[in-house]
């Protein structure tokens, strides 16, 4: 029997799973993924984490414990410091492997790979070889596996822009091939649906337990959703031109870039920011985005997720937001304020 390596279904699973699973499988390793997030996982995570930690990290700890129960030989915990020059991941991701080891004693040994691309390309190949050497002595095999993994990751990026969710891409073998990107689809003049942007980190957008299936709920309300993962580099860069200082978080750049791109090109009727409670980078990014939207009078709803979020409250807020957008579309727009400022309104439009 081969070595079993566990990958937690949390945090950057939604961005880099395909890269690592392809690499590890090509090394002859059996990849085990933890269950989908559920109440037990969340509770286990909360119990083991420090109180102030954000929900996604707590959930991650729960997933590691789930893998522990699955009796894997290793747990794969890459240390994402930076994936592009001059930008960082969140500090919590930098300290995550150490945090997991200290908070959860007794878990299987961890495989830590340092990903630091701050200096020209970084030493990712070196780290990959260090990892590959655990399973094979054949450097060519490692190189080949690495190349395949990188190719798969590129493919993944393309698919995500086409509007598929990561889970669809990871699990279903023959997914529907699309010709256009979702943005081009949505932008067709004949579509009359309400369009909104759903912006946030991958683990909040796609973990349906954490976000209480927000994408499904929006679909039920017949709303076309654009997530912040569906934008091309060039589109994000054009949005980022509004900033005076380059933003130094990779995910922050995604959120701000897509938010400003949507705002500039007037693609959507409103945006929803999906933020976890106590998220450091997002506390700043949220403010920048909200301020810009407020100045231009485009509605923007911030949904804060934590372990106490009740589904009822979220539904009410979503429905109210969508209804409000619809009214703005139908009636005289100036009758509805976008951000709670009082308007001089002689009679109710409804």
């Amino acid at each position, binding site marked *: 029997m081969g070595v079993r390596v566990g990958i937690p279904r949390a945090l950057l699973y939604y961005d880099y799973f395909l890269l690592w699973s392809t690499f590890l499988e090509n090394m002859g390793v059996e990849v085990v993924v933890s269950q989908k997030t559920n109440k037990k996982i969340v509770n286990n995570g909360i119990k083991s984490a420090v109180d102030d930690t954000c929900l996604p990290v707590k959930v991650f700890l729960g997933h590691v414990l789930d893998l522990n129960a699955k009796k894997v030989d290793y747990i794969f915990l890459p240390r994402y410091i930076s994936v592009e020059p001059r930008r*960082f991941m969140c500090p919590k991701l930098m300290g995550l492997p150490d945090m997991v080891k200290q908070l959860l004693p007794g878990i299987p040994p961890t495989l830590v790979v340092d990903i630091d691309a701050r200096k020209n390309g970084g030493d990712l190949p070196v780290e990959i070889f260090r990892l590959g050497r655990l399973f094979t002595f054949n450097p060519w095999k490692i190189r080949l596996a690495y190349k395949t993994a990188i190719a798969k990751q590129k493919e993944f990026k393309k698919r995500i822009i086409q509007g598929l969710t990561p889970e669809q891409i990871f699990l279903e073998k023959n997914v529907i091939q699309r010709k256009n990107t979702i943005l081009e689809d949505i932008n067709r003049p004949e579509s009359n649906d309400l369009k909104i942007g759903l912006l946030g980190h991958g683990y909040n957008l796609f973990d349906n337990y954490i976000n209480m299936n927000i994408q499904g709920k929006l679909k039920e309300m017949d709303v076309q959703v654009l997530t912040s993962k569906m934008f091309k580099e060039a589109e994000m860069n054009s949005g980022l031109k509004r900033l005076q200082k380059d933003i130094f978080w990779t995910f922050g750049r995604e959120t701000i870039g897509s938010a400003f791109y949507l705002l500039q090109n007037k693609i959507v009727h409103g945006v929803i920011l999906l933020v976890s409670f106590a998220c450091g980078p997002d*506390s700043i990014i949220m403010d920048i985005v909200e301020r810009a939207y407020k100045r231009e009078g485009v509605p923007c709803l911030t949904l804060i997720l934590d372990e106490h979020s009740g589904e009822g409250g979220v539904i009410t807020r979503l429905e109210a937001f969508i209804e409000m957008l619809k009214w703005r579309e139908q009636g005289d727009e100036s009758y509805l304020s976008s951000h709670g400022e009082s308007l001089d309104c002689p009679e109710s439009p409804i």
Partner: protein
Amino acid sequence: MKVTFPHMGNLWIALKALFEKLGHEVITPPPITKKTIDLGVRYSPEFACLPLKVNVGNFIEGLENGADTVIMMGGSGPCRFGYYGQVEREILNDLGYSFNIIIVDPPEGDWKNFLRTLGPLGNNCNWKEVVNALLLAWSKIKALDHIHRAFLKSQHYESSTACSCYEDIIKKIDIAMDRKELRKITLQGAGELMLLTETEHVEQIKIGIVGEVFMMWEPYVNLDLEKTLGSMGVEVVRSAYISDWINENILYNPSCILRKMRFKRAAKPYLSSFVGGHGWESVGETILFAERKFDGIIHVLPFTCMPEIIAQSILGSVSRDYKIPILTLSLDEHSGQAGFLTRVEAFIDMVREKKRAIV
């Protein structure tokens, strides 16, 4: 130019000297009070950490007092602090103030841009004047830190005398505009404070303070932690000073680089990568304090601080392995004096009991 800047401990003294020497009118924001924090909290993003809110409060008060230029530090991540200036500018713009903001970002190789940003601060002074101003500010920082170290060594003997003595010396340092005079004041002041240590003292316990630097250096936001401990007869050691930071990151002073290497080596088994801010330092310094046989550690952080939450998660095992009590104080604008005092008192009692049981 009428410049203003944010408060952080006694740093205002050095900044004031620097900008006055360069020929600017300095509007020091009034000391941080409840009103400052209220103003900051009202206009800042809800989940931002406390230092940002305090900065915003300082700026508003400074601008209200007539300043027209705001000076702020920048950074290159991953800690939120690097983007503070950008957010603060937008907040103040939306509030309708007309002002200039100069955000001092680390040059990262782009010296031309760096000097262009700093240009207006130079105020057409020649290089000699600029260097003199910088040297004076640097000596003030060193003097302030030296006096603070002496104060911490003496305050647990006779807390009220030490406090008033310390305040007098700080005032003198603020007035001094000459490096020679500054040296005299420092030596004399440290001597005066050291005199206090000659009284008899029964039982000494030593507490190290680690954590996020703003919370550690600014007495108003940490609810005067150091003096509170001093009045309980506890000797306090602060893990980092502003002069250490400047030595390490700007002047590359060899002895401080060595210090950096020491704490990195100490932290290695627990945290092997930098995590932004001072998270790595907090873990490393805690271990170094434990090795120096301190009786306890107090870890202060602003609520939701990312690097310090990592440190906090890891300090649990450090505490277990080194058998050293650690109290984590996560503070924000809602921290109440009474709850804080109860926790600190209980912690100190526990540390005392532990020490008695061992001896």
